[in-house]
C-alpha cells in the first residue's frame, strides 16, 4: 500500500526543469518602498475592467476604492498609496495594448495608514456575504491567472463542494513567493481556510505542497489549528503540478473531466497566497494594495521576495533591485509560462507572481529547428497525454479542425512541457496557442456566416 500510495501521489508524465529556487527561498519577504508615481491599470484581472470612481486632482487615502467592479466577473481596485490622482489616461500593459488607468502621485511624507472597509465576521457571515466580501476586497487568483476569486468559489446550483484544495505547489522554477508566504503567514492561511470552507461548504481541506518545500509543510503542520479539518499533503516535485487539474489528480487521484471544472469532481482549489490574503483582508474589509513577488534571474543584483505595491512601475522595481548591463529578456511570472515584457513602463499588477531578468548569456539560444523525428519526448512529457508531435505536424498544415476533433487540442492548457523537451526545437506550445486562437476565430466566423 505504501509504494502504491507514493506512485499515486502525483500526476502522469510531466517534466523536471532545474528549480533555481535556492537563491530566493531562504530570503524573508521584504517591504518595497513606494514609487513616487504609481500607474494602475483598470484591468488587472480576467473579466470586465473596473470602473473609475475618482477624478483627476482628487486626493485619495491608501486602501480607498479607486474603481468599482463593473460586473459580476470583475473586482474593484483599491488605492495602493495615499496620494493624489494626477491623471486618468491610457496606460501601457504587458500585452502591448494600452488600457484605461490611473496615475497616482504618492504623498512623500505620509504615514500611509490603511483605510478599512466593512469587516466580514467569520462567525456570522453567510456564504454569499463572504463571497461578496472577497469581491469587495478586490481579490483575484494570485498564482498568476488573476481570475476573480469570488467567481471561482461560487458553487453552482446542483453541485456540492467536498474538498477545498489549497495550492502551495509553486512548480515554476525561480518562484518562491508561495514558499515564503507559507513560512511567514501561516495564521493568515488558516484564517483564510476558515472563510473559504464556510463560503464553499467544503468538508475537508488539503494543502498540497511539493517536496522541495518540506520546511513549509512542517511549519504548517506544527501550527495547524484543531477547529478545522486540514491535512497537509507533500507531493513529489514535478512540473506542471501547480496546474489546477494536475494538483487535483496528485492530491485526490481524481480527474477533472475534459472541458469541465474542478467543481465537477466536487473540488474547489485556491492558491495559498490568495488564501492568506483572504484571511488577512476580510476581517478588516481591506482591499488588496500590494502583493509578494519573487524577483530573480541571473541578471538581478539583489534577488529576493518583496512585498510590492500594486501599480509600482517595473522600471522603478528594477532600478531598486539593480540589474546588470546586458539584460536581454524580462518576464513576468515564471520561466515556463510567464510573459515577456516589451516595455519597462508597465506596472506591477495583482497577477504578477514573479519578475525574472535574464542577461544575454542566460536566454535560450536561437537553435536550429529540425524536423520532428518522432522521438516521443513530448508524448512522454505531456501531463494530459496528448500527442504534441502529431498536433505539431497538423498545425503546420493548418488542420485545426482535426487537431480539435481528433487530437483534443482544446484540452491543452499550454504548460509548455512539449516545447521544453523537444530535441528538434520545434515551438510546439507556441503552435498550439496560435492554433487554438485560429480555431476559435474560424468557428465564430462560420457561425456568423450561418446566421447571416
Amino acid at each position, binding site marked *: 500500500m505504501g509504494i502504491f500510495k507514493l506512485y499515486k501521489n502525483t500526476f502522469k508524465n510531466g517534466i523536471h526543469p532545474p528549480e533555481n529556487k535556492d537563491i530566493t527561498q531562504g530570503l524573508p519577504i521584504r517591504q518595497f518602498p513606494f514609487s513616487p508615481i504609481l500607474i494602475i491599470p483598470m484591468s488587472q484581472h480576467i473579466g470586465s475592467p473596473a470602473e473609475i470612481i475618482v477624478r483627476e486632482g482628487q486626493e485619495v487615502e491608501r486602501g480607498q476604492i479607486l474603481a468599482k467592479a463593473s460586473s459580476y466577473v470583475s473586482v474593484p481596485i483599491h488605492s495602493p498609496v495615499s496620494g493624489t490622482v494626477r491623471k486618468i489616461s491610457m496606460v501601457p500593459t504587458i500585452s502591448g495594448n494600452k488600457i484605461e488607468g490611473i496615475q497616482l502621485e504618492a504623498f512623500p511624507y505620509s504615514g500611509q495608514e490603511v483605510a478599512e472597509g466593512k469587516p466580514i465576521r467569520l462567525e456570522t457571515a453567510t456564504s454569499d456575504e463572504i463571497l461578496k466580501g472577497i469581491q469587495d476586497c478586490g481579490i483575484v487568483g494570485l498564482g498568476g491567472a488573476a481570475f476573480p476569486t469570488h467567481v471561482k468559489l461560487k458553487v453552482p446550483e446542483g453541485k456540492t463542494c467536498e474538498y477545498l484544495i489549497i495550492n502551495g505547489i509553486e512548480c515554476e522554477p525561480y518562484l518562491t513567493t508561495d514558499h515564503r508566504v507559507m513560512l511567514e503567514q501561516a495564521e493568515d492561511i488558516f484564517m483564510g481556510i476558515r472563510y473559504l470552507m464556510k463560503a464553499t461548504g467544503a468538508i475537508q481541506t488539503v494543502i498540497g505542497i511539493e517536496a522541495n518545500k518540506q520546511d513549509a509543510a512542517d511549519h504548517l503542520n506544527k501550527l495547524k489549528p484543531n477547529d478545522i479539518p486540514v491535512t497537509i499533503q507533500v507531493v513529489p516535485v514535478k512540473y506542471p503540478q501547480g496546474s489546477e487539474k494536475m494538483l487535483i489528480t496528485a492530491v485526490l487521484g481524481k480527474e477533472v*473531466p475534459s472541458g469541465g471544472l474542478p467543481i465537477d469532481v466536487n473540488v474547489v482549489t485556491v492558491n495559498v497566497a490568495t488564501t492568506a490574503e483572504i484571511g488577512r483582508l476580510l476581517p478588516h474589509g481591506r482591499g488588496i494594495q500590494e502583493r509578494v513577488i519573487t524577483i530573480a534571474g541571473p541578471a538581478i543584483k539583489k534577488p529576493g521576495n518583496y512585498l510590492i505595491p500594486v501599480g509600482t512601475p517595473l522600471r522603478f522595481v528594477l532600478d531598486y533591485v539593480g540589474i546588470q548591463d546586458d539584460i536581454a529578456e524580462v*518576464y513576468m511570472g515564471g520561466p515556463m509560462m510567464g*510573459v515577456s515584457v516589451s516595455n519597462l513602463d508597465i506596472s506591477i499588477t495583482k497577477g504578477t507572481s514573479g519578475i525574472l531578468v535574464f542577461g544575454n548569456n542566460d536566454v535560450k539560444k536561437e*537553435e536550429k529547428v529540425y*524536423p520532428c523525428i518522432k522521438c*516521443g519526448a513530448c508524448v512522454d512529457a505531456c501531463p494530459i497525454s496528448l500527442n504534441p508531435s502529431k498536433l505539431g505536424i497538423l498545425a503546420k498544415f493548418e488542420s485545426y479542425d482535426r487537431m480539435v476533433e481528433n487530437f*483534443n487540442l482544446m484540452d491543452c492548457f499550454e504548460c509548455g512541457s512539449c*516545447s521544453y523537451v523537444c530535441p528538434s*526545437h520545434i515551438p510546439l506550445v*507556441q503552435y498550439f496557442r496560435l492554433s487554438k486562437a485560429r480555431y476559435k476565430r474560424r468557428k465564430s466566423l462560420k457561425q456568423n456566416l450561418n446566421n447571416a
Partner: protein
Amino acid sequence: MRKITLHIATSPHVVKGASTETIMKNVIYALLPAAAFGVYAFGISALLVLLTTTISAVAIEHFLCKISKKESTVSDYSAAITGLLLGMCLPPDFPLWMAFMGSAISIGLGKFIFGGLGYNVFNPALVGRAFLQATFPVPITTWYQAFGPDRFYHISSSVLALPFMQPAVDGVSGATPLSAFKFDHVDTQTYDLAMGFINGSIGETGTVFLILGGIYLAWRKMLNWRIPVSIFITVFVFSGAAYLINNTAYPSPVFTLFSGGLMLGAIYMATDMVASPITSMGVWVYGAIIGILVVMIRLWGGLPEGVMYAILLANAISPHIDNLIRPRVYGTTNKLKLS
C-alpha cells in the same frame, strides 16, 4: 537614462537543451565499438565497405540537397548513421560498387523522396539492404571467413570488383551460424555466438558491443528500450515454444536470440525513432510484431535470416499502430477516435 533593448519571446523561456544532432551523434558513438569489432574480425575489406557506405551516404545526401536547391542536411548526422548501419549489415567482402548502390538507394529512395529526416516511412538503411538482397543475391550471402590470418593486409578481390561486374569468389568463404543451421543443421556454441567468433555481416557479430552500446543509448534516453526488450521477449517465447515442440528441427531460443542480425536490428534499426510508433504502449506492440515475424521467417522461410523483412513490415504498420493505440487523454473516457 540608459537605453535598454528587450528581446521578446513566447514561453517557455527555458528549454532542456537536448538536440536532435546530439542524439544522432551518440547513436554513432554507440555503433562504433561493434563496427570496430567487425573490422578486427574481418579485416581491411570490412573497413573499406564501412567507409564506402558511410561516406557515400553523406555525399549522396549532400548532392541531392544541392540539386533540389535545399540547405544541405548532412550536419544532422542522420545520413552518416544510415550509411554506417547499411555497411554493418553487409558481408565483409561485399563489392564496393554494390555497397555504393546500396547507399544511393538508402538515401535516395529510403529517405530523400519522402522528405528527408523525420519523414521516412522505413528505416533507410534497410531499404538499401533490401534492394541489395534482391539485386545481388549471391554476393550478399557470400560470407568471408572471420579471423583470417591475412585479413589486415589482404584486400579480398571481390571487394574491388569493377562496377557492373560480378565478383569472383576468392579466399575462404564460410557459413554463418544461421545458414549452417538452416541448410546443414549444424549448431553453433552459444559462447562463440555471444563473443562473435563466427561469420556474418560486418556489424552483427560483436554482440557484446551491440548490447553495451544499446544500454548506453537507453541510459541517455536516446533509445526506446521497450522496442528491443519487446522483440527479445517475443522472439524468446515464440522460438522457445517451437523448440519445445520439436528440438531437432528448430534451434534453441538462445541461439535464435544471439544469431544473425537480431541484436543489430532490434537495438539499432527497429528503434529508428521516425519509423517506429511514438507511444510507449505502441512500441510494445510494434516490438512484438517484429519478434513474431522474425521467428516465422527464420523457421519457415527460404532464407536463413528474417530480421530485415520483419522490421520493414513493422515500419509500414507503425503509423497505424499510432493511430489505433493512443493513451487516454486526461479527463476523457477511453473512446477511440480514428482519423
